[in-house]
């Protein structure tokens, strides 16, 4: 293990690895990623794989518009097929009031170049053939939204980062961050000390623990782990439920075919504030999610569930992540608290943080003020990011 590094990133999920990759690409030598388990194991591998620009505020729409452009090129860039597909997101309205809300959101999204449009249920049925159209009035459809394989993305970022000389230490928990006179001196791990002046907290649900290591208050960025679950069915023929299909009024329930094997991933809003060791799937979840999934796609009643798992939405009070520099400690950065959106935001956020570290600014259209990690202690909250689940 290295005893000194230019940058130490704590957290080997998609965000930490994206930052590492982009630092490597910018020519930073001696980047180390510390992962307490194996890469992707915290939240990335547990996510539902969706990528969307259908948000309801300027900052998130702009960032995600940019991110989708990044996703489109990412397989080529990483020289690894990450299975990105622009299969769209289809939100379904169950009432006239909701249709009005959809229209308002679509207008905002269109303003920033996201081509969402309101579609009829006939058109929705063409996009998702086994859809139960009867309960819905209209859909909000952005064909540019999509999905990618969390496994291949993590692997692709890690592989390319290593080619740039990044060292990834798995099963190596950080245990302390040494700070003297508001300057970072190093990171203590279970396998020894790494001297460094720059640390990125990319630990998402575990980020408060990392902040505490640096001497900050645990709730400096108040991120809380909410257990979310998913079930996945046996594979079915591709092309049936390709978009993420979600009636938000039905407890944020959604279905989406896995881009790799065609299995149907089903989620719902049932969540539980929990502790960081609790990823135990529950029976009430599977009952709840299948109730909604078979209402959205009735023919799913013929399909067997083969898997159920849990992971965390690392939620901040306004469901927007904390991204940027932490002013109390020189060389300390954070990109955490993604509240369920870390996977879809990873390419652009990684690029932005890497550029911030190296150049002090970034060309990524990321609104630093919006995501400012200091906003919570100032008592400023953003409008809540539009969240499924």
């Amino acid at each position, binding site marked *: 293990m290295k005893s000194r590094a230019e940058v130490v990133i704590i957290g080997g999920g998609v965000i930490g690895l994206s930052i590492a990759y982009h630092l490597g690409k910018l020519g930073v030598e001696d980047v180390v990623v510390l992962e307490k388990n194996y890469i992707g194991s915290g939240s990335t591998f547990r996510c539902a794989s969706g990528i969307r620009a259908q948000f309801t505020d300027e900052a998130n729409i702009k960032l995600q518009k940019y991110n989708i452009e990044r996703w489109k090129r990412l397989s080529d860039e990483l020289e690894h097929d990450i299975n990105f597909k622009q299969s769209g997101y289809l939100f379904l309205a169950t009432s006239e009031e909701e249709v009005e809300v959809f229209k308002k959101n679509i207008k905002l999204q269109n303003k920033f170049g996201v081509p969402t449009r309101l579609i009829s249920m006939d058109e929705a*049925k063409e996009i998702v*053939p*086994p859809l*139960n159209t009867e309960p819905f009035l209209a859909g909000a459809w952005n064909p540019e939204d999509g999905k990618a394989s969390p496994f291949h993305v993590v692997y692709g970022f890690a592989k390319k980062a290593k080619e740039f000389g990044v060292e990834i230490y798995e099963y190596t928990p950080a245990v302390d961050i040494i700070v003297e006179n508001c300057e970072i001196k190093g990171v203590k791990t279970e396998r020894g000390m790494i001297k460094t002046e720059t640390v990125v907290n990319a630990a998402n649900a575990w980020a408060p623990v990392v902040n505490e290591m640096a001497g900050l208050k645990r709730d400096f960025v108040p991120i809380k782990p909410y257990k979310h679950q998913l079930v996945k069915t*046996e*594979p*079915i*023929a*591709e092309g*049936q439920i390709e978009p993420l299909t979600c009636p938000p009024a039905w407890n944020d329930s959604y279905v989406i075919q896995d881009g790799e094997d*065609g299995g149907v991933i089903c989620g719902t809003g049932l969540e539980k504030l929990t502790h960081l060791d609790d990823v*135990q799937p*529950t*029976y009430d979840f*599977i*009952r709840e999610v299948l*109730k909604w999934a*078979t*209402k959205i*796609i*009735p*023919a*799913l*009643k*013929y*399909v*067997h569930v083969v898997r159920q798992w849990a992971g965390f939405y690392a939620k901040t009070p306004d469901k927007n992540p904390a991204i940027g520099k932490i002013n109390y400690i020189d060389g300390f950065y954070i990109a955490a608290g993604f509240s369920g959106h870390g996977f879809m935001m990873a390419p652009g956020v990684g690029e932005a943080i890497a550029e911030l570290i190296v150049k002090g600014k970034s060309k990524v259209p990321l609104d630093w003020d919006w995501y400012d990690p200091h906003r919570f202690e100032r008592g400023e909250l953003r409008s809540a990011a539009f969240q499924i689940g």
Partner: protein
Amino acid sequence: MLVKLMRLTEHPILNFQEKRGRKITIYFEGQPIEAYEGETIVMALHAAGIRVLGYSVHKHRPRGLFCAIGKCASCLMTVNGIPNVRTCITLVEDGMKIERQKDKPKLPPTVKPPKFKEAKKVSGDIVIIGGGPAGLMAAINAADAGAKVILLDENPMLGGQLVKQTHKFFGKREQFAGVRGVKIAEILEEEVRKRENIEIFLETSAIMLLQDGDEKLVVGVRKNKELIEFRGKAVIVATGAMEKMIPFEGNDLPGVYGAGAIQTLMNTYGVKPGDRVLIVGAGNVGLILAYQLIQAGVDVKAIVEAMPKIGGYFVHAAKIRRLGVPILTRHTILRAEGKEKVERAVVAQIDEKWRSIPGTEKVFDVDVIALAVGLRPSIELLHQVGCQIKYVPELGGHVVIRDSRMETTIKGIFVAGDSAGIEEATTAMLEGKIAGIAAALEIGTASSEWFKEIEKAQKELDEFRAGPFGRKVLEGIKKVVVE
């Protein structure tokens, strides 16, 4: 014509004419096929000469039976329009429509949403998952120790793998020495059925095991459609084992069967697995299988064994040799050949580094390759609920950490039989007895008198494992038993 060819009419030990239910008709891709009530879909198909049950979705390679007890995915077919049904544990019904799958299924575009009902709820003191030798003994003893027992099994009959064991057991008289496995299954089933405090659920798969407040919840699905919530104060997992596969070219061809699947075909349902068989593995399972095949009138061409010595009991090996079946030690299977199913097997001698020696290849003209290469414990439910797991090769793979009374690292969850570590039916029965009593003691229905019974069973286990064949198991047990 094929129908008569594959059905066994005469057998020295078993009488299938008596056992078979009412004759009905099922439809395989539109073609009517004769079947008997009480048999599983795949048995009826096999009896009609249908061995190719489907095709893999990506490379469209033919798929046939492998485990025949619902543990693998080799026999999935579309039944009455429902894809991916395990045809090896689903019983035939008159008029049933069975289709092979070639591609991933397509959903019908217009279907009525299902009515969402509350699940059926069943409560007891102890829920036992698995009705094989371990589960049956656990049920009998837990019931006698005062517990209300719920016993479930995903197969259509009780007895687990005993229902296909035509050989006589060893051991002591109280361990059914000299009695055939099939008979032991009957005796244990009778004992279970005459106890009023045991409720039995067959064709019921346990799909989830959870801690639910102070209780344990076992989520079950009966006959592929009915959801049942089983609740109890304790759970005993006696889910048995799964046949191991070894890598060789063509190992997915229909006709490459697990040894247990062949026993299920011929000993449980009276269907000939094929005409000429090569057996891989000369442990007790391989040796006994050879004898049973010969009893069913099937030609056993050879047994190959990679180890330099025969693994099974000498008496079994001697019997096989007397019947003229060559046992080739230090040999392995190189490949299975055939277009849609096994037509030939190529074997070769191996050197001390386990590499095949060129020039030693032998070709056997067989239509069945039986793999008797060991078992691994079925620990899925125990793993899912969060029991501590350890890899112990002596016990067949991943097993749970447990104490000497078969309780896992989760209080109130017990394990017994092959799912606790691969051994045999005799030890499974003893472990089942211990687990059943220990569970009853823990939930407070049994008096402390019952401790003596546990000690007795533990002593019998020690004695049984004291022989040379128990040495490996004892090494393994040392690694998983904690106090």
